[in-house]
């Protein structure tokens, strides 16, 4: 019997820290699940306007994004300060939207293609001209479900 027992000197046992990692792991799992790592690097200023009647976008996999805004500081000497369109990781022209939508649509399951939504993330300091061009291009590409990205605020004026 004594084989299993250590020296008889009894000390006050220290608090076991063995369960600490478990707690931390739990936190990790929470953050892992809730994380959406940004896959695109924003090259334009993108502060979306506020609105009160916003709806949440469900099903992020069905959403493709179009960013519009002034190029960020480090791109301004190359691309100027006029609002520009960003698709994926590069600046684009209005004519490129058609191809972009086509590629995005191809990635989706056939049955889900009608549910595809295009989220327009437009900076507040943009004039409607470029937005109208984008909207017309989307109509031509028959990507008709759009979402004007806006953040929820309590009061707009």
């Amino acid at each position, binding site marked *: 019997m004594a084989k299993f027992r250590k020296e008889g000197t009894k000390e006050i046992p220290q608090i076991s820290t063995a369960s600490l*990692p478990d707690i*931390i792991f739990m936190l990790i799992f929470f953050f892992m699940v809730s994380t959406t*790592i940004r896959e695109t690097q924003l090259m334009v200023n993108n502060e979306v306007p506020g609105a009160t009647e916003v709806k949440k976008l469900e099903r992020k996999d069905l959403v493709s994004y179009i960013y519009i805004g002034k190029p960020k500081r480090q791109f301004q000497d190359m691309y100027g300060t006029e609002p520009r369109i960003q698709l994926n990781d590069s600046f684009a022209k209005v004519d490129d939207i058609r191809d972009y939508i086509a590629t995005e649509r191809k990635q989706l399951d056939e049955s889900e293609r009608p549910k595809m939504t295009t989220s327009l993330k437009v900076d507040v300091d943009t004039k409607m001209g470029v937005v109208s061009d984008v909207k017309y291009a989307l109509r031509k590409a028959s990507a008709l479900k759009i979402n004007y990205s806006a953040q929820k605020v309590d009061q707009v004026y």
Partner: protein
Amino acid sequence: MARPSGEFNAAPMADIAFLLLIFFLVATTFDVDTGIMRKLPPIPDEEQQRQQENKQIKERNVFEVLINSNDQLLVEGEPMNISNLRESAKEFIANPRNKEDLPEMEVKEVPFFGQTETTKGIISLQNDRGTSYEMYIKVQNELTAAYNELHDGLAMQKFGQHYSELNKEQKDAISDIYPMIISEAEPKNIGGN
């Protein structure tokens, strides 16, 4: 030879876990994507275009909203402040006193409601290419709010619940009575880009 005890030192494990935790904390962006949903009209082919040109919509059924390049509003021919837009849009859509210059009501069979008056009003929105996006979203927001408030009011009155809590059939019935039609004309280019 004394064998080392079976318990291993778990303290550095917490450090590793912390490291991972910090990585995910930094990498996390809780961007819930929200926005105003809209449906763009498809580009009509020639046949449809001809039909549309023949189909005249009465002037009383159209609520005309114009935004110029200085972000000023012209609603039904009158300058208006954005803060009044919601109320006047609501009054237009619902036409509570059956006024002559507000939209016609059409009696239709609607589920849950039976024979009910439904509005024929549509909102026509036109902006300039120089209108700021901020103003455009404000106007879209107010128009959406007008419809949402009408839907919510009707839902409360009929079902005693908020519109968002109704099931799909009930929602459809309510949006049959106040159908949300916002038609956008091609923008003008007066103010320049």
